[in-house]
């Protein structure tokens, strides 16, 4: 059953078309790696899905319900949660307060504060620390925990590794493993291709605002993804046509 369906989505930044005619269908339990160079439109696309940026055209459906016109807090209530790029924590509030804010939409589900601390054990000692003073890894864990507190059907993770040391990234992904084992649908933006290929079961590549590749991870090769990333497939197809 499709749990997120995007049809012909156009998103603009003023004159610039950042996302152009993107369609995508996600099924329950999908773990999608969204791959693309900087400026390919990934973040804009995800922000449009989560309601932080309103699209110029197209529709978005969540569990069969139209959410294109809903404001972001209503989408959270409908089951979408975004871990934004740059974490965007409320830095003058404690870890606990940030997590509690994540539960504002009051969706029922398995996640609560204690469970978050189980999954991210390094956070529990930071419970009453203001997040602005914490390390990047702790902040990222808090941001993910905050999103989980809404018990989402779909979790969107935008650049969770950005600005973190490799060791800390390992830690974050270790923590994520338990989450990946559940049937939560996940969209993940990750620059580290090996990691993305390991974690996700489906690859979607964006280039210049369009989806250029969408395949199960098991059927895709590393080269295919790299070509899509740099737009090389276009040149190859082009050459092929000419020949």
């Amino acid at each position: 059953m499709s749990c997120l369906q995007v049809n012909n989505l156009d998103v603009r930044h003023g004159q610039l078309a950042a996302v152009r005619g993107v369609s995508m269908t996600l099924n329950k339990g999908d773990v999608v790696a969204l791959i693309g160079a900087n400026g390919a439109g990934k973040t804009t696309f995800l922000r449009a899905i989560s309601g932080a940026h309103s699209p110029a055209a197209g529709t978005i459906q969540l569990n069969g319900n139209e959410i294109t016109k809903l404001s972001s807090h209503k989408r959270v209530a409908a089951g979408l949660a975004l871990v934004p790029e740059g974490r965007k924590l409320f830095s003058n509030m404690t870890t606990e307060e940030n997590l509690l804010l994540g539960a504002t939409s009051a969706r029922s589900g398995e996640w609560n504060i204690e469970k978050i601390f189980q999954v991210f054990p390094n956070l529990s000692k930071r419970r009453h620390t203001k997040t602005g003073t914490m390390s990047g890894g702790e902040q990222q864990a808090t941001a993910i925990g905050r999103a989980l507190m809404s018990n989402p059907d779909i979790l969107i993770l935008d650049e969770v590794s950005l600005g973190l040391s490799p060791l800390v990234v390992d830690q974050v992904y270790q923590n994520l493993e338990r989450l990946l084992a559940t049937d939560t649908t996940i969209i993940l933006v990750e620059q580290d291709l090996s990691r993305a290929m390991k974690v996700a079961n489906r690859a979607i590549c964006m280039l210049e605002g369009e989806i250029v590749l969408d395949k199960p991870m098991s059927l895709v090769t590393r080269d295919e993804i790299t070509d899509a990333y740099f737009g090389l497939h276009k040149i190859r197809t082009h050459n092929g046509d000419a020949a």
Partner: protein
Amino acid sequence: MTNQIIQAILLGGYYALLACGLSFMFSVMKIINLAHGSLLVLAGYLLWFLAEHYHLSPFVGLLIVTPLMMLIGWALQAFLLEKSARGGELLPILTTFGLAIVIENLLFEHFGANTRSLAPYIGDLSWQSWELFSGVYVGKTSVYILVTAIIILGSLQLFMKKTPLGRQIRATAHDPDTAGIVGINPKKASAIAAALAMGTVAISGLALGVRGVFDAYSGGPQLLFAFEATIIGGVGSLWGTLIGGIILALAQTIGANIHPQGFLLGGHILFIIILLIRLVLAKGGVSHRMKAAFGGAK
């Protein structure tokens, strides 16, 4: 001497009560509401109107005026502040200043030029006092006002810190877009904050009328007192507002001792001195502060 200090502390409590709504809006919503004084006077007039025409004690009147002011606060946020805050940091100053002019002149049009007071409607209370020790009397209303200020500031502080709604309001003030992503309705959170601020303004209006007299144009001076108490106490700290109010009142008392007309001047000059001290203390970070100060000032 002791008597003067005690009276000044009580007066400071009054200033803190005047400042509650302004300080709350400033620290939580980052908006300086220039209509604060006029809204306070509006609340005073509403209480007076109920007392004069319906013989409602101002304390009972508060049960009607507080929700009414909260409604006004909600409308203020929905129709004025929401839109002007999106236009940058400067726009709310202009719109709330315009609102102050509209309110005070409407009040003048409706209630005329006579000064009003709520003191006649609270019976004996207005002149009753306690004798603290030999020869030092404190007016009961002044003490009640100080206590009310402490209760309101304390409960606001507690509300913001401990309740989900308080957290949501803080989160929205910090970053409304992210608040939405987290599941908070930022419009609702801001409207509730504005309604709360105006709810306290109703009580400030009661204090204004009980402690003295007011007319349609009293809003300006009240705004300055509230603003000075807020700044002296340190923006963002509700308890600071109480301290700020007391320091302001002490400075006025000292001013009045120096010169018969020095009461107001003493408070204003202290305010400028505090600004200077703030500058010296922040000297290390002046350039950073300059950026913070004028970066958004477009």
